[in-house]
C-alpha cells in the first residue's frame, strides 16, 4: 500500500503567534482584573506621584506651578530628610539582622516535628496577628520609664537605674526595633521552616557519616542551600522595614526630637500636616529609588546558588 504524501502545510510565524495568543487567552483573562486594579490603583498613582513631585503642588489650585527638579534639589540639602533616612536605615538594619538571626535559629529548632512543635510555631507566630495599634499600646506600656515592665525588671530585680528607653535618642530606635522583631519574626520563621524542610535529608546523613558536627553541618549544608529562602526573607524584610511608620508614630511620636522619626513619617507629615504635596512626592520617589537600588544590590549579592 502506498500512501501519497501531501506537502505539509506549515503555519506561518504570524499564525503561530496568533495560535499561541488564542491558547493563552484564558490565562490573560484570569490576570486581567488584577492588572486593571494594579494599573488604576498603583501604576497611575505612581506616575501621578512622580508628576506631582515636579510641581509646587497646592491642593486647591487649578493651574499648578511647574518647578522642575527644585523639590529634589531642596531634598538633597534637607537635613531632616537625611536624618530620618538615617533613622530608617538604622531601624531597618537592626530589625532585619535580628529578625533573620532569630527566625533562622528558631526555624532550625522547629524544623522537625516534636511534641509541642506545632504549639510553639503558633506561639512564635502569634504576635504577628496583632494590629500595629495594639503593638503600639503594648510598646508604650513595655518601655514606659515609670511603669514599664522592662524597667520593673531593671530596677526591682537587677537593682539598676530607671532607663528612659523612649526618651534617650541613642536607644529609642533599638527599643522600637526589638518591639518590631517580637511582632514580625514569626513570618520569616515560617518561611525558613519551609526552606529548611526542602533541603534533602540524605545530605545531613552523609555529613553525619563523614563526622561533621552540627555547626559545620549548618555552615556548609544548611546555610548555602537556604540562600534562595534567605534572599526572599532579607528582601521582603528590607522593603517592609524601610517603610516603618506606625511603630515610631504610636510609640515614640518620632521623638525625642527627630531621633526616631522615620522617612515615611516625615513623608506623611510633609503631605498631610504641611500640605507640601510636591515635596512629599519627591520624598516618596527618592525613597522608592533607594529601595529599588538596595534591592537590586541584595539580589546581585545573594544570587549565587549552591547545589549538591
Amino acid at each position, binding site marked *: 500500500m502506498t500512501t501519497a504524501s501531501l506537502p505539509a502545510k506549515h503555519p506561518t510565524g504570524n499564525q503561530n503567534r496568533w495560535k499561541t495568543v488564542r491558547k493563552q487567552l484564558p490565562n490573560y483573562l484570569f490576570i486581567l482584573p488584577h492588572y486593571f486594579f494594579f494599573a488604576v490603583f498603583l501604576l497611575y498613582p505612581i506616575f501621578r506621584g512622580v508628576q506631582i513631585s515636579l510641581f509646587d503642588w497646592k*491642593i*486647591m489650585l487649578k493651574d499648578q506651578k511647574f518647578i522642575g527638579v527644585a523639590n529634589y534639589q531642596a531634598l538633597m540639602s534637607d537635613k531632616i530628610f537625611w536624618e530620618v533616612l538615617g533613622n530608617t536605615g538604622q531601624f531597618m538594619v537592626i530589625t532585619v539582622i535580628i529578625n533573620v538571626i532569630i527566625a533562622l535559629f528558631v526555624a532550625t529548632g522547629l524544623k522537625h516535628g516534636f*511534641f509541642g512543635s506545632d504549639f510553639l510555631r*503558633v506561639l512564635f507566630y502569634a504576635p504577628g496577628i496583632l494590629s500595629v495599634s495594639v503593638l503600639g499600646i503594648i510598646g508604650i506600656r513595655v518601655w514606659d*520609664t515609670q511603669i514599664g515592665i522592662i524597667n520593673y525588671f531593671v530596677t526591682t530585680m537587677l537593682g539598676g537605674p530607671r532607663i*528612659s528607653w523612649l*526618651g534617650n535618642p541613642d536607644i529609642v530606635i533599638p527599643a522600637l526595633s526589638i518591639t518590631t522583631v517580637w511582632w514580625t519574626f514569626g513570618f520569616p520563621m515560617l518561611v525558613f521552616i519551609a526552606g529548611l524542610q526542602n533541603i534533602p535529608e540524605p545530605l545531613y546523613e552523609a555529613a553525619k557519616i563523614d563526622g561533621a558536627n552540627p555547626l559545620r553541618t549548618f555552615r556548609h549544608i544548611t546555610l548555602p542551600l537556604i540562600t534562595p529562602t534567605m534572599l526572599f526573607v532579607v528582601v521582603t524584610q528590607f522593603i517592609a522595614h524601610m517603610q516603618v511608620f506606625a511603630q515610631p508614630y504610636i510609640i515614640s511620636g518620632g521623638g525625642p*526630637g527627630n531621633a526616631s522619626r522615620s522617612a515615611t513619617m516625615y513623608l506623611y*507629615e510633609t503631605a498631610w*500636616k504641611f500640605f507640601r504635596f510636591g515635596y512629599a512626592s519627591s520624598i516618596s520617589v527618592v525613597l522608592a529609588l533607594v529601595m529599588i537600588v538596595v534591592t537590586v544590590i541584595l539580589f546581585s549579592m545573594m544570587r549565587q546558588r549552591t547545589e549538591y
Partner: protein
Amino acid sequence: MRKLSVGLTLLMVLAMLISACGGAAPAAPADTGAADTAAADAAPVAEAPAAEPTPVVNNFGECDDPLVLWHGLTGSDGAVFAELLKQFTDANPDVCLNSEGYPWDIFFQKYPTAVAAGTPPDMVIFHAAEVNQMAHEGLMTPMDDVIFNDGTLNKADFNEVLINGITVDGQTMAVPFDNHGWLLWYNTKLMEDAGLDPNVLPANGAEFIEVAQKLTTDVNGKHPNEEGFDKDNVQIWAIDYTWPRFTIPTTLWQFGGGVVSEDGKTATLSSPESVAAVQFWHDLMYKYYVAPPAVPGKMWAGDLYKNNQLVFMWEGTWTGGFMRDNPDVAALTKTAFINSLAPDGNQAVKFDSHIMSIPTGVDQDGMDKAKKLMTFLVQSGAYWATSGQVPALKSVQALPEVQSIASVAKAAEQFNAIGRTDLAHPAFIEIQTAWETAVGNALATPDADVAAALQAGNDQIQAILDRP
C-alpha cells in the same frame, strides 16, 4: 501527643481571639495630641469622667438635607458640645444636623481633600492658630460678608488679639467659638502640707525654684536640695512639663523670647531669651529635680495631679471638665494666672480658640444654615463654659453664670489681660513641628545641649520663612 499539641494550639488561638475582642488598655495621651483629645484620652487612665459616651457622629433633628458639621471636639467637652447642638435643633426645627467628630490628624486629611473634591461639609471647627495656613491653602470662606458686616455678630465683642490672628489679608476668615489655653491649677493641700500659704504664689523664676524645692518630695520624704534625695522615686512633683505646644510659647514669651519675630521674617528660637526659657525647663527637670523629665509616653499630668502627686499643673481650660467629674480633686484645687518663670516675673500665657468656618465651595443654603448655627453657638457661650472653655464673646464672659465658674472666670480675665496667640503664618504647622522637635531634643536628656538644639531648630524655621 500530637492531638494534645494541636489542642494547645487551638486553645491559644481561642485565647487570643477572646483577648482581641476585649477592651484595649487605655493609652497615655501623646503630647502632640489635640487639646481636646488630650484631656479626654487621659481621663480614662485616671478612671475619671467617661460617665457618658463620647459623641463622635451624631444626627440631630430629621430632614433630607442636613447641615453637615465636621469638628475635633471629641474629648470631654464633646458631650457638652453635643448637648448644645441638640438645643440648636430644638430651637430651630427647620434645620437638622449631622455632626461628625474626628481626631485632628484625620480631620486635617479629610477637610482639604473634601474641599478639593467639591464635597465639603457645610461648616468646620478647628483652631485659630491654623486659620492662616488653611486660608492660604484656599480652604476657607471669608466671614465678614457672611456674619459680621450685617451686624449679626459684633467683631469688637471678641478678643482683639484673637481676631487679629484669624484675619488674613484684611479678611476675617472665621468666627471664634471660645477662648481656651493654659491656666494654673494648683493643689492647695499639698502647699499647706509643705508649710506654704496657698494664697501666696511665686512671682518669678527664682521664687518658683525655692518653692518647688520645698514641695518636691521623694518616697523617703526628702527634698531635692537635701542629701540622699532619690530622684528616681519622687512622690510629689512641684510642676510638670505638660503639653509643650502651650507650655513652651508661654515660657518663651515670659522670658522675652519667641519662635518667630513679630514681622514673621526672622526665627528667634535661638535668641538668648528663648534659650534661657527652655534652659529653665531643662534645669527644673535635670538640675533641680522638681519636674519629671520630658520623655515620650510619660504619665499625663492629670494622673499625677489626681493622685496628689503634683502641686502646680499648667493645663488647659478644658481641665474644668475633669474637675467637674472629680469633685474631691476640685475641692483642693485653686486656679490662677500661669505663674511666671522669668527672672523679672514677666507674665504671658498662650491661648487659642476653637473657630467656626465655612469651607470653600459651600452653596448658599449651606452657608445660611451654618450662619444660623454659628450665631447660636457663639451666643450660647454660657452653656459652653460648663465644659471649662471660656466663651468667645466678652459680653457673655461677664454673665453671672459664667463668672460663677471660677476657672472660667479666671481664665477669661487672664486671656484678656496677658493672653497671646501664636504668630499667624502660612506654614504655621511646619514651623510648630520644627520648634517642637527642637525643644524635644533640648529636653530629652540631662546632658542635652539646649542652645545647640534650639539653634538647629532656628535654622530650620528660618529656612521655612525664607522659602519663596
